[in-house]
Structures are given as structure tokens and as C-alpha cells.
């Protein structure tokens, strides 16, 4: 598991350094961060229910208001917990 994980951590970087990517690949890399986390979050939210949905909404709203990740995570988790305890 350690070897397989480190292979992905270091392997992608080493491969791209050797290849010297062109313009299209470099502009794709700019889009990957957002797309990657959307791809991570979307199925998790689809599998969830009201606690997750409300928690995610509170997380985004708190993040927009405060720009503080710790506040957003705490508020979002508290929101999810609140809905869960009523459910």
C-alpha cells in the first residue's frame, strides 16, 4: 500500500517532468484542481441525505462569508449534526 501510494504521489510528477507537456496539457492542468474536487464531492453528496446537503450548504455559505476554512468546516459539520439529530 505504501509503495503503491508513493508511486502515484511521485510518479505523476516524474512522468510529466520527463515529457515536457505542451500548451493544451498545461491548460488542462489548470482545470484539474476544481474538476478533481467536484468529482470527489458530487458522488458523496448524491449518496448523502439532508444532513450532508445542509452541512455542505452551510460550509459554502460560511466559506463565502468568512474565507476561513476552519470556520467553514466547523459550521458545516455542526449544521449536518443539527439536521441529523432532528432526523
Amino acid at each position, binding site marked *: 500500500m505504501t509503495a503503491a501510494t508513493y508511486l502515484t504521489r511521485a510518479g505523476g510528477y516524474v512522468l510529466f517532468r520527463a515529457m515536457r507537456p505542451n500548451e*493544451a496539457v498545461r491548460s488542462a492542468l489548470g482545470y484539474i484542481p476544481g474538476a*478533481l474536487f*467536484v468529482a470527489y464531492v458530487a458522488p458523496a*453528496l448524491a449518496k448523502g441525505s439532508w444532513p450532508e446537503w445542509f452541512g455542505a450548504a452551510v460550509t459554502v455559505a460560511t466559506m*463565502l462569508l468568512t474565507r476561513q476554512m476552519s470556520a467553514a468546516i466547523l459550521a458545516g459539520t455542526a449544521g449536518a449534526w443539527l439536521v441529523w439529530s432532528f432526523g
Partner: protein
Amino acid sequence: MSATRSRFSRAAIIAGAYRSLPLQIGVIPFGLVVGIVSQGQGLSLTEATVMSATVYAGSAQLLALGHWSVPAPVVAAATASFIVNLRLALMGPVIGPWLDRVRGWRLWASLFVMADQNWALSVAEMQAGRSDAGFLFGSGASMWIVWVLATALGHVVGGVLRLPPGHPIFFAALAVFVSILVPMWHGRRDLLPWVVAAATALTIARLLPDTSWHIVGGAVAGAAAGVIRDRRA
């Protein structure tokens, strides 16, 4: 030499450790969960701690622990780790402009402690025009320390707490990724890549549950959609 050093400065390492404090807090519930599950699957405190310290990939560890048995399923666990962590192979090249200026243990250690959260924070730093890879290492190493401690703590309290699997404290792990997305939204040009990424991920997650192909597929499809759209414009 001084040019090399300025790309991996002590100040940036400390800044990374400080700025990643919210991420360190966010990783605690996830670490506790992995510790609790490890304990439930019969791993000793040492085994659980070593696993967290060397693998350092929560989703891969949870997936492997879900199908744990004695003797350990080495091939299955390694394969699952590789698939779940394929996204890391997409992440390394993005931070390439920083890593290209770093050599030796600094490079390989920075890659070892690279995780979703501190990578996202470092990409934001890089896009803001800062050029010191020490930030990646500082944020990663401090998260790694908190991660290992949280797993150990989770293992210790695992027998006492007995939280049900659907307990909302576990939402904290997802909240980390939701909050990371907010500053990544740069306006309408991100709409198409994000919609394509979500649709692709949802489809793949349904076809191949319990893998991370949906993350890899969604990220690639979303980025490709953005590039194709830009070329036509």
C-alpha cells in the same frame, strides 16, 4: 546555492505549517475514523500507527480496512491503494513549477507528504504568485504529524466511543473538500468543466462503486471539456 535555498526556505515551511492549521483540524476527524476502524478490524496500536505514517492516505486506508483479513490481503490492498490514489498522479504535475526547482530529499519528502488538502492550498499559493516549495513541505509535514497522532488517538478511544457509521462528525472530512472548492471558483469559465466533472463522476461512481475511478475520470473529463471549449473560443 542561495537561489536553490530561497525556493525551499524555512520561512515558507513555517508559513505552510501555520496556514494549514485549518486543514490540520479538518483532518483530525478523518484520522480518528481511520483509527477507530483499524481498532475494530483488530490491528494493534503499532500496526495502525505504522500504516497511517507510511501510507498516509485516508481514503485508501479506509477502503483496505473495509476488506481486511488475516493474513493481510497484500495484493488487493495495494491495488486498491493504487486506484484510490491515482488522483495524486494528476496532482503532482500541477505543482510542478514549484517542484522543478527543488532537488534531493526536499523533492521526495515534499511528494511523500503531498495530500489533497495541502496540495490545494499550495496550488492557491502558487496561483497567487508565490514560488517557494517549502510551503508544500511545511503544510504537508504538519498535516502528516496531526494525521498520525489522530489515528493513534482514534485507535485508543475506538473501544470507548463506539460511534455509529453514519454519525455526522464524519461529515467533517467531506466539509474539507467542499470548502476547498469555494476559492477554486474563478467565475463562469469554470462552469462547464465542473458540470462535466460532476456528471462523469456520478456516472462512474454508479458503475464502479468503492473505487476512485470516478475522481480520476471526473477530473480528466472536466479538464478536457475546459481545454476543448477554450480552443474553440
